C-alpha cells in the first residue's frame, strides 16, 4: 500500500468548509483523525494520487462521492441509546420546558423521523420510562416514521441482534426485552404496542402535516443528504410539525446553521437543540 501524505491543516480546513457548505455537517479538530482516515480510504478507493485531485472529485460529486465520503460518519447501523446525550437533554431540559407550557390534558408527543428499524423511538420510550420523573403524570405519544416501508416492518417486529443492544445494561435488556430465536431479542409487546410507526416523506407537506404537531422531533443524519432546496422544504415542514416552543434535535455533526434560519438555537448542558419560537413577531 503506497504511503499517502498526511492531510495538511489547510487541506483539512478547506475540506471541512466544503462539506459544511454542501451537507451542513460540522467536523471539529476532535474528528480530524477520522476525517483524515476517511480521506485516505477514499483516495485509495478512487485511486487519487493527491489530495487536490481527490478534492476535485469530491467537489464535483463524481459518482456520488459526497455520499460515499459522508456515509462513514453516519453509520447506517443504528443501536439503542445512540447519542444518549440528546436523550439526557430530553429528560433533563426539554420536557420540563414543554410541560410548563402545555395544557394538562394534552399528550407529550415525540417524533422520530427517520426512525429506520425502530431503535430510536424505542430508545426514547425506554429512556423516558427509566429517567423522566414525570413519566407517569403525562400521556406520551411516540411516533416513528420513515420513507422506507421495509424498515418500518422491521421496527414493528421489534427484533434486534446483540449489536443493537450493546449500549444497554443487562438490567435494561431483561426489563424491556425477551429472548428470541437466532440469538436475538424482541422488545416487549407493551412497548411495541405503544409506538406507532408510519410512512412519511419529510419533503411532502401533506404527509408531515397529517401527523399533527410535536413537542420534540428527532431528525438525525437525514438532512445532510439533501440538496439546498430540499433541505429548506424539509425544514419548513418540520417547523410546521412542531408546536410553538417545540424542539428539534439533529445529528451530532449537523447544524441548523447551514439548513435554515427558521429555528432558534438553544444550548443545554447535554446538547445543542433548535426551537420553534414560542410566538410573537421578531425582526
Amino acid at each position, binding site marked *: 500500500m503506497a504511503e499517502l501524505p498526511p492531510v495538511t491543516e489547510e487541506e483539512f*480546513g478547506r475540506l471541512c468548509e466544503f462539506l459544511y457548505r454542501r451537507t451542513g455537517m460540522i467536523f471539529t479538530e476532535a474528528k480530524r483523525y477520522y476525517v483524515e482516515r476517511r480521506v485516505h480510504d477514499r483516495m485509495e478507493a478512487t485511486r487519487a494520487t493527491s489530495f487536490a485531485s481527490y478534492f476535485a472529485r469530491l467537489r464535483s460529486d463524481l459518482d456520488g462521492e459526497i455520499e460515499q465520503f459522508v456515509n462513514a460518519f453516519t453509520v447506517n447501523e443504528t443501536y439503542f441509546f445512540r447519542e444518549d446525550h440528546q436523550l439526557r437533554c430530553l429528560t433533563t431540559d426539554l420536557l420540563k420546558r414543554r410541560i410548563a407550557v402545555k395544557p394538562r390534558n394534552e399528550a407529550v408527543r415525540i417524533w422520530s423521523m427517520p426512525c429506520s428499524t425502530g431503535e430510536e423511538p424505542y430508545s426514547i420510550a425506554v429512556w423516558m420510562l427509566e429517567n423522566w420523573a414525570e413519566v407517569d403524570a403525562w400521556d406520551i405519544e411516540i411516533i416513528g416514521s420513515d420513507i422506507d416501508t421495509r424498515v418500518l416492518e422491521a421496527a414493528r417486529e421489534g427484533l434486534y441482534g446483540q449489536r443493537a443492544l450493546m449500549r444497554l445494561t443487562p438490567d435494561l435488556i431483561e426489563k424491556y426485552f425477551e429472548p428470541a430465536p437466532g440469538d436475538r431479542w424482541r422488545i416487549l409487546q407493551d412497548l411495541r404496542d405503544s409506538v406507532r410507526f408510519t410512512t412519511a416523506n419529510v419533503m411532502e407537506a401533506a404527509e408531515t402535516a397529517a401527523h399533527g404537531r410535536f413537542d420534540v422531533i428527532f431528525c438525525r443524519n437525514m438532512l445532510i443528504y439533501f440538496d439546498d432546496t430540499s433541505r429548506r422544504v424539509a425544514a419548513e415542514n418540520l417547523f410546521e410539525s412542531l408546536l410553538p416552543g417545540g424542539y428539534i434535535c439533529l445529528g451530532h455533526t449537523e447544524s441548523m*446553521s447551514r439548513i435554515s434560519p427558521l429555528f432558534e*438555537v438553544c444550548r443545554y448542558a447535554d446538547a445543542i437543540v433548535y426551537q420553534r419560537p414560542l410566538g410573537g413577531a421578531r425582526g
Partner: protein
Amino acid sequence: MRTPSSINGLWGVRVADTASRRILVVDDASLVRMYYRNALERAGYEVDEALNGLEALEKLLVRAPDLLIVDVNMPKMDGFTFLRALRRQEGDVAATPAMITSTEAKTEDFEAAQSAGANFYLVKPIPQETLIDYVAMLCGPAR
C-alpha cells in the same frame, strides 16, 4: 435587554478583564477569515470562525468570545440580524463587543449598524495592522 448605550465608551464598549482574549470572526469568505486569523494569532489572540450569523450564534453559546468581528453580507443570517439576535440573548453574552465590517461607507450604514447593536464599524478592505489596532482598542491586548 442590555444595549450598548447603557455602557460607557466608544459606542459603549467595556474592556474585558480576562486574560488570553478570544475573537470570533464571522465572515463567509474563507480568505477574509484566513487574513484576519493570521494577523490576530500573530498578535497573540485566540481565534474562532463562523461562516454566517447562525453558526456564530451557536458558537458563542458554547464558548463566549471577548470580541466579535462580523461581516454584513452572509448566507442564512446577515450581520445585522445576527447582532439583533445577539443583543436579545440572556446573560452576559448579549453585551459581547461586536465590530461590524462592511463594504459600505455611507452614514446610514454606520447608523444602521449602531441601531443593530454594533460597537464599531470598519470599512473593507481592512489591512491587518488596522484590524489589530481596533481589536486591541475594543477588547484589550491579547493577554
